[in-house]
């Protein structure tokens, strides 16, 4: 049995896994850890400095993409399971393994990928930039956002923001890693506490005005909202403090609508366009039109 200590990054796992595979090491002969404290309990074996074997073993890019995504998950078991599936796909002879969504190991990796994918998607959705300044020299607007992802996704999620917000300078701060864009280069720094990010933006009030008015009180569906926007995100969303009030007053607003006196139809104003429409409608009504229902 050997213990492999790696950085909690996909590249570190890949380098180690390549070497182990080249040596034909079976999955149950390895313990994996990305926790340096835990590693000191074992006689750790350094990997990553040696060159991989000349004859690299081939594995599909579909698996490497899955491995990259699953690596961002926080489950400590991921390194060992990824190696086991890699081994089964190659030396184990189960080349078709990824076709078996019914396989326990494959299913577990797919679940991790799904959780990571969802976390990235929610980061793209719920990051809120706050404008902090305008660069005196370049004239570029500068924005800062705070986000708390569940998994280690900042590197995977950042390219989207580079493409979308190339014309402004921005930083996204998170507890474990921060991403920065200055118009030329995307780079990453260590995590920071919540207090490093601004709380408000001058536009937040106008945004809340929009949110309040786009809501339809006649069709309240709280579960549908919460399944897509779970409460854990609310503390960093400027619109979320409105939710309770909107729900509370919705029944009263609908009662108000139902109690309103019905408005009579007003005659058409004298407008040339309206008149031409009515003429056109009358002409088409004169000849039988095609039935639009089902055959």
């Amino acid at each position: 049995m050997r213990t492999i200590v790696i950085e909690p990054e996909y590249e570190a796992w890949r380098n180690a896994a390549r070497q182990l595979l080249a040596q034909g090491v079976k999955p149950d002969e390895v313990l994996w850890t990305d926790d340096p404290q835990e590693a000191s309990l074992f006689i750790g074996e350094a990997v990553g400095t040696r060159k991989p074997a000349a004859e690299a073993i081939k594995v599909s890019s579909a698996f490497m993409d899955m491995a990259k995504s699953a690596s961002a998950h926080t489950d400590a078991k991921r390194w060992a399971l990824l190696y086991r599936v890699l081994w089964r796909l190659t030396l184990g002879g189960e080349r078709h393994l990824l076709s078996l969504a019914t396989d326990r190991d494959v299913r577990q990796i797919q679940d991790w990928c799904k959780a990571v994918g969802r976390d990235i998607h929610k980061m793209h959705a719920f990051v809120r930039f706050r404008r902090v300044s305008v660069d005196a020299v370049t004239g570029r607007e500068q924005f800062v956002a705070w986000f708390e992802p569940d998994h280690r996704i900042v590197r995977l999620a950042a390219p989207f923001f580079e493409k979308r917000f190339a014309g402004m300078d921005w930083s996204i701060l998170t507890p474990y890693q921060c991403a920065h864009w200055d118009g030329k280069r995307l780079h990453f720094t260590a995590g920071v506490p919540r207090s490093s990010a601004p709380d408000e933006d001058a536009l937040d009030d106008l945004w809340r005005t929009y949110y309040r008015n786009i809501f339809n009180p006649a069709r309240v569906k709280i579960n549908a909202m919460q399944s897509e926007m779970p409460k854990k995100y609310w503390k960093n969303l400027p619109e979320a403090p409105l939710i309770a009030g909107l729900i509370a007053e919705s029944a009263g607003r609908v009662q108000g609508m139902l109690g309103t006196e019905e408005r009579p139809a007003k005659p058409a104003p004298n407008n040339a366009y309206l008149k031409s429409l009515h003429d056109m409608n009358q002409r088409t009504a004169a000849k039988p039109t095609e039935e639009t229902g089902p055959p």
Partner: protein
Amino acid sequence: MDITRKLEILADAAKYDASCASSGAARKDSRGSTGVGSTGGSGICHSYTPDGRCVSLLKVLMTNACLYDCHYCINRRSSNVTRARFTPDEVVQLTLDFYKRNYIEGLFLSSGIIRSADHTMELVIEVARKLREEHHFRGYIHLKTIPEASQALIALAGRYADRISINVELPTQQGLNTLAPEKNLARTEEAMGHIREKIDERYAEKRKPVAPKPPPFATGQSTQMLVGADASTDATILGCADKLYTAHRLKRVYYSAFSPIPEPSSILPLKAPPLIREHRLYQADWLLRFYDFKVEEIAHAAAPNLDLALDPKLSWALRNRETFPVDVNKAPREMLLRIPGLGVRNVERIVRARRYTGLRLADLIRLRLQMKKLLPFIVTADHHPARMGLDSDSLRARFLPPPEQLELSFDAPPAPAAGDFLSVRSGEL
């Protein structure tokens, strides 16, 4: 009137349009420009309101003043609602300010009709032109168009927009004659046909690289139909949707259950249909588009309305019990798609896996399928449902939900855009 007050009025005026999709646009982004914006890939819902609808676009009207008198609409000329009007620059600034804060991923601009169709279209187009040409905005733009607007203006709208749409509103001309006397179904369909031709040109050009490049145009069109405002049956509504999907290749038809508005009309008294009806229509729409069902299989003259208690696929299976059970290890893909409780994605998983292994119940459980729903309809290596059970009349009763919870889970469609999907979640009462 200040910008806050205008936004209140013109967002409130726009909220009855259910469309919120921001997916399916051509891939473009802001790298190398001084602007912001990107499209392509799946849409992003940046927030959700307590009505369960997603907020992905800034959805506003240019003005809520309107010449038309559509009785289901809060903005009709007979309504006493407060009127407001944005200037193009105000909408441009709001869009950019909201976009840079990542509140939204684009603009959905519509308008009440003032002076004429062309005049109104020009106002709407001017906003899109400024965003694209003066501010290099590469985000999503959805423009509502008017069937009676000139071809040149619709072409221009399509040049700036990622999606354009015309709402049919009601599936029959009789319905429109009563409730929306200015609207005409034939003219709407004619305009959709022209838009389809322009979209087709755009895609044809991709296959023939030597042909002269046509002007850029939106990648898709969609529409909305109101449910419950007139007497149209589900068969009529789905028939109309199916026609629009096949004849004009619409990306989406949105169904919007008529809901009470603050300015009720004497011609259309408030009687909201159950929201579950809207949900069942979305489920049926999914069956048409992704499961190869025909309208007549879901709703027809003898039973023109969908069963509100059961989802339409399960209803179909119960009406066609002789088709089942289906052997998941042998049946063709199109039969697997007919099994209640089995969605497109899991059908693909089964088809791939069964090439290498005989599927047993334990395998299906690992796929986390809805076994209770599935079991009466399938055969696996280790399971054959009792014939009696399948034929018995108690089968339908078994699937009826307890009166308190009418919501049934629905098979996930193939990777829908987040924005597309959300408006489908409407089965809750």
